């Protein structure tokens, strides 16, 4: 058996343990969380559309004709019965309170729905004073929300802690289970063993988080307006989907190597997790060269849509959350792979020196 075959053999033997480990079952929850959120959003839209649709739906053309200043009677004549209609009256003693001169005595609120937009109309003393239209499914806005969720939750927390759970257990978990000697007594180089276990962890993590990224992306796209979705797929949709999945998988490549090495060097997984979180967190403040030593830097550079940052957000927070100077896509991929190779080489050194010493675990 050549080393390549041995690596594959070890990976195959380890895969079942990695996928079905009780210790890292919560990893699936992290991966599935964004999909659940977007499915929930789609379900909410679907329920509202069902509740407000049918006979109660108003035509978009009619809604567009409504102008401020129109009377409520005219609006009712034009649009028909609203979904919601509420009237609030109050008695104003204008003779006692001069400031109340301009306050209305009757406020009326009506809500209409045209299948996509919810329109809220506010009348004061019988005249329309405001018209608020809101798309229940706003594709552009949802894509920005997805970009934010992907970068701020999925990459920074989901994949980060998921890889921590999967990769740190490849060696440390076996040490705790007192079963690592089984592998050390096989006629396999420690480097080969390490790569085999890394491959098993990588296949599992990449499948779990790659699928999670794809499903959440589809959960965001598919409930949108069919024509918009079609246009999206025909233009940038596939490319976006590819890069989100690629970023998730490459995140597993980078974080996986780091946590595998940490599992060999340290007993307590909390320490590398905190150090890495801090390092990734302050990346925006670091000099350019040191920024290249961050997995997140490369991953953010791969994301097709920049994460939305509110204008009123403090500059410090913006530096923490946004990639300081994104690398080009080829550089980001190569940089991440180079970083991974360096970390794996260090892990191989540690694996060569690793001893079975269950008594001190």
């Amino acid at each position: 058996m050549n080393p390549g075959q041995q690596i594959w053999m070890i990976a195959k033997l380890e895969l079942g343990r990695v996928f079905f480990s009780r210790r890292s079952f919560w990893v699936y929850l992290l991966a599935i969380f964004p999909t659940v959120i977007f499915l929930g959003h789609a379900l909410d839209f679907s329920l509202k559309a069902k509740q407000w649709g049918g006979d109660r739906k108003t035509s978009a053309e009619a809604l567009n004709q409504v102008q401020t200043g129109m009377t409520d009677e005219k609006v009712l004549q034009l649009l028909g019965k609203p979904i919601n209609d509420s009237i609030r009256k109050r008695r104003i003693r204008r003779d006692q309170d001069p400031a109340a001169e301009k306050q209305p005595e009757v406020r009326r609120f009506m809500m209409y729905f045209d299948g996509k937009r919810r329109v809220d109309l506010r009348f004061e003393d019988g005249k329309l004073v405001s018209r608020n239209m809101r798309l229940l499914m706003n594709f552009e806005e949802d894509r920005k929300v997805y970009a934010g969720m992907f970068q701020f939750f999925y990459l920074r927390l989901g994949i980060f802690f998921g890889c921590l759970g999967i990769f740190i257990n490849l060696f440390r978990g076996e040490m705790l289970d007192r079963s690592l000697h089984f592998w050390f007594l096989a006629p396999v180089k420690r480097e080969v063993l390490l790569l085999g276990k890394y491959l098993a962890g990588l296949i599992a993590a990449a499948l779990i988080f790659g699928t999670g990224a794809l499903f959440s992306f589809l959960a965001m796209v598919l409930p949108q307006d069919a024509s918009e979705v079609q246009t999206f797929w025909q233009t940038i949709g596939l490319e976006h989907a590819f890069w989100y999945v690629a970023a998730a998988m490459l995140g597993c490549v980078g974080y996986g190597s780091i946590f595998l090495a940490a599992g060999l060097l340290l007993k307590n997984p909390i320490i590398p997790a905190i150090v890495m979180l801090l390092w990734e967190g302050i990346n925006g403040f670091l000099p350019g060269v040191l920024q290249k030593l961050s997995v997140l830097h490369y991953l953010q550079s791969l994301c097709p849509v920049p994460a939305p940052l509110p204008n009123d957000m403090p500059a410090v927070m913006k530096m923490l959350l946004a990639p300081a100077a994104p690398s080009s896509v080829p550089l980001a991929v190569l940089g991440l792979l180079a970083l991974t190779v360096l970390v794996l080489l260090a892990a191989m050194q540690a694996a060569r020196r690793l001893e079975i010493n269950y008594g001190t675990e």
Partner: protein
Amino acid sequence: MSANEIVFDNVSKFYGDVLGVNRVDLHIPPGITSLVGPNGSGKTTLMNLMTGLIHPNSGVIHVRGLSPYAPEKLMKIMGYATQYDAGPRGATGFDFIFTGLLLHGFSKAEAQSRTWQAIERVGLTVAAKRKVAGYSKGMRQRIRLAQAIAHDPLVLILDEPLNGLDPLVRAETIALFRDYGANGRHVVLSSHVLQEVDVFSDQVILIANGMIVAEGQIKSVREEIHEHPSQFLLHCKDASRVASLLFAEAHVSEIKLAPEGDGLLVLTRNREAFSAALERIALSGIDIDGVIPTDENVDALYEYLIGGGR
């Protein structure tokens, strides 16, 4: 260095500040070799060192010319039945051995055939498809032995292999060791009871407190222990006179007088003869206030190993 021996050259191993083994020099020839010593004496440390599960702080180890730092070569010729109970999580007895053989590079068919052979050899065929976690202590002992022999190694290392075995299985297991020990292979096993292993061992290594106390064929080890000099501290007023009388005894090899002149340290090769000589001196009218053995380690160890200390 012989390509047929297991060689420890000035090997020391410390666990932090705790001594594992200290300055061990060993040449273990093929055949059955038993490492015998009390619990915590360093037997498992020696075995883990020769299998590469731990590494020495100093010194060099070679197993039939191979370094424990090269598991890809060493484990081809070595099988190690450890004391560690755990195997891959959820594995059956069959899986435990079969998986190991796949890592050796055997084809699935060959690995299956060898797995069944090894399982049959240790008499676990009926329980082969049950999970190892549900095995009794004796069954676990046997499945570990089966895993160690499944790839037909030249060197078989067994940590306390007779623990937990009933008499019938124990006899069968010893027969297996004898079978393996023939044909120029190594069988190195550990025990804390000398009587348990001296009947079938070709050589014995006695170890205590991380140091090799005696090694060789069982007969020579026994003689070595009996002939090991014992040291006694005598308290007496006329130390110079007692010293001159003891010097006349053939078994006394060394005497040191205490600086105050009220005692002496005596090194003897024969405790019984020394005791008789002291009796004669006392009967001659010389007062001996006390006799304190100061170096009973080897004797105490031997007593322990043959069962007196248990």
